[in-house]
Structure formats: structure tokens, C-alpha cells
């Protein structure tokens, strides 16, 4: 290393710029922007999201695409496939009603039932679980044991009992699903709250004199939202499936109302003669189930704070 000649003159003291050392170069992203950025990388989840968006749009627009009412009967075209009855894209059913219109109307009803029921579930779950976890002690114990007892009875039994007592209908199914589904959500929220309330930022807020209300609204709930949303995307297909099952065993919506379950039930009766009548509602159910589950998977990865880079 004889050719390297280092002398003090060759060096210059550049010092240290404190203001510069505090600079942050990375663009500012909120939690949700960051999650969206990660979700976009997941092709399966994005495909599911597009498919679900398409189904939701169709459930509202679909019934208006063809010039038929969902309960309009045309006795000249009974049990005809699309090829036999031009103008009816999915064919007609045993009462001469257009299946295309009925499938989308049914999707709309099924989605509405599922979304309303799950939103009520989540609200009850957040309030119940939040109180239980935040207050803690004996109250927590009593509240959680109550949940354990209530939800040790199979959900389907509850729902069937409630529907038999109140009588079938849109409202009844929503109420039945809402009353029987909040157990899991309240457990989830309680777990989150128990974990978060010992975190130092909650202690810091208390040190600053924050009220219990403020701690719950500003600190605990925003930080539990990720798991809650993931749970929600998994609860919606569950509710759709339960509704379909209830309609299938005859406890669903009264005629002439359509839901995915009643359509599948009607189609199943004629399965051996006219298989297309079961096919269309089944495809929508399958796509909805798969779409929500795959989207939920993607969201779980996107919202998991441990994956943040």
C-alpha cells in the first residue's frame, strides 16, 4: 500500500448537521394507505375485490337490464332455457319468471341480509367486548361466561327457534342472524382491548388526564379496527351461507320474494329435469363465498402490522 499517501490535508471536517439528521425521506403514508399498498400487491385479493364489486353492482343493476319484474309470470315460457326462450338470458323457471332478474334480485336480498346482520353483530360485539375488556375484573368474567353459555348452543338451533317463533321474513332473518352471531366478535374485541389497554401509549393518554371515553374512542378502537374488518369479511359469507341454508330448508323468505337460498331450493326441486335452474344461483353463491374468503385472506396479510416494512 505504498502508493496510497494519506495526509491530514486531504481530509476535511464536514461536521454534522443535526437538522438534516432528523429528516425523514420516506413519503408519509397513513395506516390505511399503507395497507392498501400491500393489498394491491396481492393479485388474488384484488381479483376477488373486482369480482365482488361486479356482483354488488349487478345485484342492483341486474334486475333493470331485462324488461321483466322479478315476480312477473309469463305462462308462455315455462321451464325454458335461454336457447328456447330468446330474451331470457338465464332462461325461465317453473312459473315462467325470468331467472336472470331473479338471480340478481336474490343476490341483492341475500347481500342486504348478510351485511345488515353482520354490521349489527359487529356493533354489539364492539360495545360488549369493549366494555368487558376495558372494565376487566369480575364484570369481565361475568360477561364472558355469559357469552360462553349463550354461544355453547349451536347457532343454527337458535336461528331456527327464533324464526319459528317470530315467523319467517326479511326482518326475522336479520334479527336471528344478528342475535346469534356477535359472540365471536365480542371475544375478539375483548382480546384486543385487553392487549392494548396495557400498552404505554394508553398509559401516556391516562397520564395526560384522558377520560375512559377518550381512551376507548381515540386509542383502543382505532387500533382494533384491522382485526375487526378482517373478521367482518369472513362473517359476511358465513351469514350469506346461513341465509341460503335457511331458505333451502324452507325457513327463508316467503314467496314470491327471491334470495339466493330460495332460488337454489326451487332449482334443486327440478334438478334432474332442468339443471340450469340450480346452476345460476349456485354459481353466484360460490363466487361470493370464495371472493369474500380470498379477500379476507388478503386483508389479513395487508393489515397485519408485523408485515409492515
Amino acid at each position, binding site marked *: 500500500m505504498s502508493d496510497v499517501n494519506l495526509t491530514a490535508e486531504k481530509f476535511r471536517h464536514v461536521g454534522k448537521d443535526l437538522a438534516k439528521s*432528523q429528516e425523514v425521506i420516506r413519503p408519509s403514508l397513513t395506516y390505511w394507505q399503507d395497507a392498501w399498498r400491500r393489498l394491491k400487491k396481492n393479485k388474488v385479493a384484488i381479483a376477488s375485490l373486482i369480482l365482488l364489486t361486479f356482483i354488488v353492482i349487478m345485484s342492483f343493476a341486474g334486475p333493470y337490464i331485462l324488461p321483466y319484474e322479478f315476480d312477473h309470470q309469463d305462462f308462455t315460457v315455462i321451464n325454458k332455457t335461454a336457447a328456447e326462450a330468446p330474451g331470457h338470458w338465464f332462461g325461465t323457471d317453473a312459473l315462467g319468471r325470468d331467472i336472470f332478474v331473479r338471480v340478481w334480485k336474490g343476490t341483492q336480498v341475500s347481500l342486504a341480509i348478510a351485511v345488515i346482520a353482520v354490521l349489527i353483530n359487529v356493533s354489539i360485539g364492539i360495545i360488549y367486548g369493549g366494555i368487558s375488556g376495558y372494565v376487566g375484573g369480575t364484570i369481565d368474567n361475568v360477561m364472558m361466561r355469559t357469552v360462553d353459555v349463550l354461544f355453547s348452543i349451536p347457532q343454527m338451533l337458535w336461528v331456527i327457534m327464533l324464526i319459528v317463533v317470530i315467523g319467517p321474513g326479511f326482518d326475522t332473518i336479520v334479527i336471528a342472524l344478528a342475535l346469534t352471531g356477535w359472540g365471536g366478535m365480542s371475544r375478539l374485541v375483548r382480546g384486543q382491548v385487553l392487549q392494548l389497554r396495557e400498552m*404505554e401509549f394508553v398509559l401516556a393518554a391516562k*397520564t395526560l388526564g384522558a377520560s375512559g371515553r377518550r381512551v376507548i374512542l*381515540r386509542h383502543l378502537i382505532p387500533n382494533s379496527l384491522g382485526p375487526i374488518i378482517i373478521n367482518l369479511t369472513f362473517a359476511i359469507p358465513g351469514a350469506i351461507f346461513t341465509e341460503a341454508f335457511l331458505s333451502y330448508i324452507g325457513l327463508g323468505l316467503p314467496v314470491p320474494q327471491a334470495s339466493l337460498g330460495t332460488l337454489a331450493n326451487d332449482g334443486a326441486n327440478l334438478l334432474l329435469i332442468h339443471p340450469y335452474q340450480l346452476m345460476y344461483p349456485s354459481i353466484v353463491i360460490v363466487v361470493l363465498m370464495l371472493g369474500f374468503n380470498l379477500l379476507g385472506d388478503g386483508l389479513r396479510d395487508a393489515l397485519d402490522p408485523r408485515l409492515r416494512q
Partner: protein
Amino acid sequence: MSNLEERKVLLEVKNMKKYFKVGHNAILKAVDDISFKIHEGETLGLVGESGCGKSTTGRTIIRLYDATGGEVIYDGMDVHTLNRTQLKDFTRNAQMIFQDPYASLNPRMTVGDIVGEGIDIHGLYKGIERQKRIYELLELVGLNKEHASRFPHEFSGGQRQRIGIARSLAIEPKFIVCDEPISALDVSIQAQVVNLLIELQQKLGLTYLFIAHDLSMVKHISDRIAVMYLGAIVELASSEDLYEEPLHPYTKALLSAVPIPDPTIEKERQRIILEGDVPSPINPPGGCKFQARCELCQDICREKRPELREVRPNHFVACHMVK
């Protein structure tokens, strides 16, 4: 500190106890009957090994925990008998800086909202005034006002700790409990943060209770130091006295573990190695807390708990053997 006696006592802890119930019959005595005073403008260092009750002491003083017994008197009022509105006023005077800069900032709030939380809770400023105050605070702790709209995860540990400091300063407290504010940071950043704390103390006339387990750092910042062992204070003296003449056998062992940045002296350094582990604070034995690991232990140590006595002027020790 010759003028120590003349200075006003800002905070006095009298026989404070904090017990936790663990299981059915077991009681964990995290803080067991401690008393000390903090004077206005002073920094009291609180040292001890992990699990000796340092953090519990800090948290009980500002009433994050309710004390099992004893009093905490701040400026003439007992903190543990305050009602809700009085407590809210008290929080304006006493704040805390937390240990873990990653857990102590809410990841869903912007830095501006984190720093401004105290301002919002106490309704100090609104609108543009609030914004200005937040910028002021960020600049006070060495950050830029551009940082206000960013989120905590975008900052390094040292920067986060500065944000935590800005948050506690937002409501202009007089007294701050620093709960190991530097132990989670890089050594190079530790000095920056400690110097910032010292600078703020001079600028704003703050009083600190500085909890730590890094002895050299504590010596640097503290006027007086209290050494804790198993929920009790074993020695309390000015930092010079404590380092020059440690009297309690535990303090001696603790100080013998501090490396000296001078190779010739360092070579001579004799470490006192303590036998055994810290006993469990659950249902501890009577008598002196240190009896199980003490070389000087006599019968009296097992029977009677030593009081904190003033052995030299302003140098307190809780040991039967020190004369």
C-alpha cells in the same frame, strides 16, 4: 448540594406501598414502604436492577396505580385522595416519559395529534394556536414542524423518544417522571436524549424523577440518587457522595460493576460478585431485604427491617451494619 435544605420540597413520598395480588394468597410487594423527598428543580435518580419496583414507584407517584398505603404529597396535596377534577389538574403538573419509544406512541395518530393530545384534553389551545404550539414543541425537542403530519412508524427510536418528550411537555408540567427513557435507545442516541432532558430542565425549570439502571448515565443527570432493592430504598445520597463513598453493601456491589473509562484504574477495579439471585418479591421474608445475599448479615438483619438513617450529612442508608 449545600443549599438543598433551603429549596422547596415539590414532592414528598411518605411510606408509600404498592402491593399486587397474584393468585389467591400471594401478594407481590412491588414497592414496600418507601419515603423520599424531591426538591424543586432537582433531579432524583432512582436506580436498581430489573424488577426491583422502580417503574411501579414512578407510576404510583403520578397515580397510574393506586397506592396500597402511604401518601404522595405534591405541592401540599395528597395525590391519592384527589377527586377526578383535582386529578385532572394534577396531571397538568406531573407528567411521564415512557421507556419503550415504540409502544408509547399510538400508531394510528399523527405526530401532531400525539403531541397535541394533552392540549386537547385540557382545552389549552384551539385551531391555529394549537398548531403553532405543536410546532413550537417539536422544535423545542429538536424535530421539524414538517414531522407533525407524519406517523410514528416513520421515525427512529431516538426521534420517537423526542416525540414522547414533546407530548409530556405540551401541558407545561413542573414535574416529570422519566421511566427509563434511554434504556431502549442506542448508546449514541442515549447521550443526545439525556442532554436534551438536561437542557429542557434548565430552560423550563423542570423537576425530574429519573428512573434508570445505567449507573453512569444516572450520575451524569442526577443531583441525588436513590438505590432500590426489592421494593425498598437502601441508600439515598447526593450523586458525588454515593459514588465516592457507597455505604450499603448492595450499593457497593452495584458500583463495582461500573466500568471505568481509564485503562489503568480499570485494571485495578475489584468487582464484588453477589451470590444468588434477587429473591422473589412475592411474600418476602421479614427483616432486611438484602439479608439473603449480604456478607455482613447478622441475626438482627433477619429480625428487624433497617430504617433509612442519616449516617452522614444528607447521606441516608438502610443497613444495621453501617455505623
